[in-house]
């Protein structure tokens, strides 16, 4: 059983920033993350893999907190009043009792179903990058990167740098929307510099706008994808297709605690505090907005949770600037309505339970879908099909029960008076 002042859940940029500032302010901080190292998704692999200046700066700062981090742990359940977190690692279960919590649970990629999307070889954009970073050989492989968002560019650049043959990037956003965003970049010199660097990395890879994948082909394994562009439809041979349509916030733990939501994200006040007085939230889970916004929100949450309000307030200006950029980003990459017509009636929307689009259309709510078609009843508990159904047919997901992630049944019986070590 662990006691601490502040538990930070998630060691991505927001979580790292919150932990660092909270610790600097004198709080005892514990950081919980389900990956082997800090960095979250965007800085996956931590120091071993990150070369950008911003990433290295924060990873370096985080070293002073790192010793209090529990990695490879899954927070499966949480309670308020008093705060209590139930978490499991591969060989043990633990309970953490913090005074305050900072939720920095980030976001996951948004997948939209299309014919053939379940073929082995079709992955997410961040997904392919993550698996490549964890050892998947990509040198010489033909890869199509598609979907939406700046992540497509960053991932394509990474893949190319590591020897992959990135055939093209297909961005569903229109030329007009992206032109507006480019103007916004001009207002942020730092961003422009980053974009310039990105341009150099991407030389030679066609960046096609108004373009998306309509079908993936293969016999048990991906062989090619069909793309629809502004003026034509054609097929590209590829070994892997990295396809994802932006990000969707991870708010399950917040919902379990009882935090009020603002649409699909956790509602927070100017100090990044949720509707529960000792629970804060920062980063993508309080609104998709990118790294810079996540960092400053994390700093504000860390200071605020540690009682350092003036220090938090000093950052409001920086947050406002980052938020403006984030707004421009989200507006530029908004998903177009044609993407709702991608799935065929027989296309699976729920991959865990193989529920087709046609079956989903025969029911009237996500709850009815769960109970009558099993959609969302599989191990992912709606984390993949929920956002897709939200986009396709406008359903809101419903109230959440523990465990937030599948957990060992033994974990759910954990009694803190005896440590449970199941590596028997």
């Amino acid at each position, binding site marked *: 059983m662990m006691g601490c002042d502040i538990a930070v859940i998630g060691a991505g940029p927001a979580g790292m920033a919150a932990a660092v500032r909270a610790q600097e302010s004198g709080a005892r901080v514990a950081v919980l993350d389900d990956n082997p190292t800090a960095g979250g998704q965007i800085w996956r692999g931590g120091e071993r893999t990150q070369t950008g200046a911003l990433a290295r700066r924060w990873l370096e700062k985080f070293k002073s907190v790192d010793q209090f981090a529990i990695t490879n742990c899954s927070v499966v359940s949480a309670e308020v009043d008093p705060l209590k977190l139930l978490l499991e690692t591969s060989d043990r279960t633990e309970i953490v009792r913090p005074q305050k919590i900072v939720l920095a649970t980030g976001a996951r990629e948004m997948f939209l179903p299309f014919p053939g999307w379940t073929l082995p070889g079709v992955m997410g954009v961040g997904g392919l990058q993550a698996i490549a970073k964890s050892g998947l050989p990509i040198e010489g492989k033909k890869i199509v990167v598609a979907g939406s968002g700046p992540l497509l560019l960053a991932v394509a650049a990474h893949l190319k740098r590591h020897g992959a043959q990135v055939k093209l990037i297909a961005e569903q956003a229109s030329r007009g929307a992206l032109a507006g965003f480019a103007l916004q970049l001009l207002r942020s010199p730092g961003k422009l510099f980053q974009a310039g660097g990105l341009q150099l990395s991407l030389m030679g890879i066609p960046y096609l706008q108004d373009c998306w994948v309509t079908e993936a082909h293969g016999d048990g394994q991906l062989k090619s994808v069909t793309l629809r562009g502004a003026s034509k439809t054609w097929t590209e041979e590829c070994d892997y297709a990295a396809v994802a349509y932006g990000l969707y916030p991870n708010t399950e733990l917040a919902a379990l605690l009882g935090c009020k939501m603002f649409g699909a994200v956790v509602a927070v006040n100017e100090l990044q505090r949720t509707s529960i007085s000792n629970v804060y939230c920062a980063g993508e889970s309080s609104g998709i907005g990118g790294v810079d916004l996540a960092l400053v929100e994390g700093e504000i949450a860390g200071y605020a949770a540690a009682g350092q309000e003036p220090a938090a307030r000093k950052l409001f200006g920086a947050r406002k600037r980052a938020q403006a950029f984030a707004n421009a980003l989200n507006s530029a990459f908004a998903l177009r309505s044609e993407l709702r017509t991608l799935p065929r009636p027989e296309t699976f929307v729920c991959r865990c339970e193989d529920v087709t689009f046609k079956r989903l259309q025969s029911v009237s709510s996500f709850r009815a879908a769960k109970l009558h078609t099993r959609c969302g009843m599989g191990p992912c*508990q709606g984390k993949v099909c929920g956002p897709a159904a939200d986009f396709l047919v406008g359903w809101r997901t419903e109230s959440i*029960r523990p465990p937030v992630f599948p957990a060992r049944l033994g974990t759910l019986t954990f009694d803190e008076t005896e440590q449970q070590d199941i590596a028997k």
Partner: protein
Amino acid sequence: MVTPRSYDCVVVGAGIVGAACARELANAGLKVLVCEKTDVIGGGATAAGMGHLAVMDDSEPQFALTSFSQRLWRELSPQLPPDAEYLPCGSLWVAADEEEFQEVERKYRFYTERRIPVEILDAQQLHEAEPNLRGGLVGGLLMSADSVCYPPCAAKYLTEQPDSPAIEILLGKKVVQMSESGVKLDDGALLSAGFTVLATGCAAAELAPEIEVRPRKGHLVITDRYPGFVRHQLIELGYLKSAHSTSSDSIAFNAQPRITGQILLGSSRQFGTSKQQPGNALRDGSARADEVIDQTSLGSRADTPQIDAHILARMLQRAFEYMPALERMSGIRTWTGFRAATPDKLPLIGLCPGYKNVYLATGHEGLGISTSLATGRLLLDIVLDRDSAIAREPYSPDKRCALHA
């Protein structure tokens, strides 16, 4: 969007009991409307519980109702669609010591006398039947005619049989008032009905305050897929000692194999302090309001759909005592539900006291799925004023409600 608005019968509640009643009435030629306050058929207790189709022997009336209903389920089973997940896996009552084994023998005699197929298993046979049960158990009673199903889809099927007369279903509308001429909805609309059937489970007291039906909370857990790990519906006989009584909190080991290979684990029973209906266990919409949960009062906890970590832990620990391998297996979801419990453990089937044309079909506690079909048949018999295959009197509301008035 309901036209015309005049029916022979309005059934309030589209759980499995309401669906079964509607099906019987429609098959008899009546024009039936089912009115459901949520937007899902079979979304309340029907969705929350184990779809165990069992014969039980706590009392003669309970036996009569469950065995009659099981016959009806068996007749219906060939027509059930695949998503109703009907699985004739049988039940196995597990005895951990000699006292419980004597109960096995008593049940064997009871059921044999009444021509229910049962078989006594000794320790070795029990192990062969269920290898993942721990060693050291004494034996068990196999009831091979028992089966399981997935109730929300079974309920949906009952309301939508393509070859049967149509039942009209009105979703998302709550009945707020009953009268001799029909019902009134929460939007003010009036539906005219020859008679009304109240099948709203533990919400029944809202519309008929004089009846005594209280919510009895239960917890369940479902695992990831482990095909073949459990083969029968398993129930412990230890409840004899741990008192699955009518008053206190209790847990008992129950494990059910689903056709998917997932294992459904239960069971728990808690009474809340309030007679009010606690609300649908899985309400639509976004996260619940940020109410502060009072953990000092277990009683108030039992009124909410919230998972009670202590009860869940006890329930799972009990399960590990019978099937130790469960401890390392993956649980993907937990939830709660509310059974409709009456003081004497028998459902209320028949005319509602104080009404000439309102009928009750509620109070089924943990046997709602099992006895839904028989309930529908009995209700039809009552409406048509004809004899039933079994004596109806034990389920009649009038005497029992008068006792508690």
